[in-house]
């Protein structure tokens, strides 16, 4: 066989200088919409900063994986969702949760493990869910959510709904077998799923180059192996994120075809708050560079101020409101009660919780 080049499936012929503001999907945004997006970014940032403080005050258990630095990815992608679009992600899930419209109270209370939390204190930081808002979590096992996202897409297609499943994962998660199995199935079955790799450069303390072999175009180009479309973009500017995500969503909606979209982003904090080494595997300068030049909040604020749709006063107001909201959420969480011991034993089986006929026979929970 002669060595032949594959026809690359990369979808967007865009270059770095592309004027994303004038992308169709961005032109549709009203001034109000744009400010609303800013508010979302800020609310995520403030929510997490408050949660960090309380975590450090010993109010929470386990992990706290902060999304700070990556906000534009979730906000941009989620802002495109219609009624039949769904979203699922890994354990770094606060941003997506607030983006889909979950309340700070239920989210903060969940971190505290209170019964008023979105998962009644049973899931914690890694396990936020809001199926009523098409948000399917929040999953702790690296890569484990990717078949579920594929399944959401399967369900949509089965029901004949024109939607898609935005399935987020990290750059370290691409090396889980379940993800690859999902890719093959999604391509083979032509499922409307958009795999969004939030490439923040690290999986815990491991830089991307130390964890993945991949084509020089990056992780998304692994899609070639499944003859699948792929794309790469930067994650700091909402216009850019929206433009690229929308391309992929259109492909899902219109052709029922999957995409891998890699979005380059950065996290400012450690992997989890308990990551004492956060500053060992990367330089202080690297972090500062991102905070200074690539911060999604700053970038968007500058864009909107440039467009004249936001003043710095308004921005400050939005910021104080977000702080107030976060502070109130902390109070709400503080004041809420923990689950009772008896609550340990509910939410295990639907049939039991609903006291149906099917739950009447035999012992189902054991001593």
């Amino acid at each position, binding site marked *: 066989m002669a060595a032949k080049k594959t026809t690359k499936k990369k979808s967007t012929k865009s270059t770095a200088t592309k004027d994303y503001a004038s992308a169709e999907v961005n032109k549709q945004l009203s001034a109000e919409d744009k400010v609303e997006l800013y508010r979302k970014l800020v609310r995520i940032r403030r929510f997490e900063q408050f949660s960090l403080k309380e975590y450090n005050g010993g109010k929470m258990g386990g992990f706290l994986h902060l999304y700070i630095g990556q906000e534009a990815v979730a906000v941009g992608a989620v802002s495109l969702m219609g009624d039949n679009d*769904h979203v699922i992600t890994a354990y770094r899930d606060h941003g997506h949760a607030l983006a889909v419209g979950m309340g700070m109270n239920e989210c903060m209370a969940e971190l505290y493990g209170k019964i008023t939390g979105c*998962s*009644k204190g049973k899931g914690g930081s890694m396990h936020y*869910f809001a199926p009523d808002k098409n948000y399917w979590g929040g999953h702790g096992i690296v890569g484990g959510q990717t078949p579920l996202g594929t399944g959401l897409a*399967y369900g949509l297609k089965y029901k004949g709904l024109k939607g898609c*499943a935005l399935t987020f994962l990290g750059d370290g998660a691409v090396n889980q077998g379940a993800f690859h199995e999902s890719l093959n*199935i999604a391509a083979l079955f032509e499922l409307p799923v958009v795999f969004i790799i939030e490439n923040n450069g690290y999986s815990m303390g491991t830089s991307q180059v130390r964890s993945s072999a991949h084509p020089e175009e990056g992780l998304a180009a692994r899609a070639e192996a499944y003859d699948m479309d792929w794309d790469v973009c930067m994650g700091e500017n909402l216009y850019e994120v929206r433009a690229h995500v929308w391309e992929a969503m259109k492909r899902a909606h219109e052709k029922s075809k999957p995409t891998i979209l890699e979005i380059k982003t950065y996290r400012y904090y450690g992997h989890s708050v308990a990551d004492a080494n956060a500053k060992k595997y990367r330089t202080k300068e690297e972090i500062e560079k991102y905070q200074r030049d690539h911060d999604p909040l700053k970038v968007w604020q500058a864009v909107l101020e440039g467009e004249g749709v936001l003043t710095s006063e308004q921005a400050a107001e939005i910021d104080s409101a977000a702080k107030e909201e976060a502070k109130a959420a902390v109070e709400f969480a503080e004041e809420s009660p923990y689950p009772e011991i008896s609550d340990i034993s509910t939410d295990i*089986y639907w049939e039991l919780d609903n006291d149906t006929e099917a739950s009447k026979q035999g012992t189902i929970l054991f001593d």
Partner: protein
Amino acid sequence: MRELSYRHALREGLDEELTRDENVVIMGEEVAQYNGAYKVTEGLWEKWGCKRIVDTPISEAGFMGMGIGASMLGIRPVMELMFWSFHSVAFDQLVNNAANVRYMSGGLINCPIVVRGPANGGTGVGATHSHTPEGLFAAFPGLKVCSPATPADAKGLIKSAIRDNDPVYFMESTLLYGNVGPVPDPEDGDFVIPLGLADCKREGSDITLVAHGASVLQALEAAEKLAEEHNISAEVIDLRSIRPLDEEAILNSVRKTHRIVVVDESKPFCGVSAMITAIVQEKAFDDLDAPVLRVNTIDAPAIYSPGIEKEQLPNARRIVEKVLTIA
């Protein structure tokens, strides 16, 4: 009553549920065009087409997770594992995503999925293909596990499993697929058997034999031998469902017979038989005239050799011998 094979009874159950609910979809390797590796789904693809009967690649983690994800949206996937042994490559999806998503979401999500396929040794396929993971999965709260021994039970339970709104792991046996037995006629009404209800397959007064799946047949054979050769009257309780578990049926029998042997194709360490033993000795301590004894698969990976494979499994001879030590 008309007689059907276990395989046919299962298929009839699947077919009825496909008819009843358009969200029921059957998926797995070779279930459609090939008619199923063990022919349980024979003819269903021809009847129902590609939407309802779906062949998958050999990607158990991927397609099992896909089924779970789809079930969260209200699809009711019935997933075939060609062998339950292949759970090992889909374990995370089976014990984390399916079992925990309801809990971790504080009850917001449920996962009405059925996973079915054969789980048994005794067919010369060696250690990797002969796992019997009933206890392994029943150990995870959030999951339900059942394992029918007869055609009627297979049909009645699969229908319940599909209607159940929780994940049900349904373990069959390649050794039973060809067995024939009475199954109620669909004309006589919808035939379902609730999960969690044991069935007394043989009444007796001297000793209780508890079993599930193919071991029920070994227990019944042993009971006959005990009656004929030793004048011992053994009661055989078929659990049918491991979780939920019909504790009362077991305990009531023990309160009558005062002796019990648990027959279980799992390995001795931490299997279903260990669990039943723990329950019985705790809840019927004063009723027991002898320790609860167990007949399990001999503690080794499944040997291939057709010459002695059956000796590794619980069989009537070993059950009788065990009973005779206490009765």
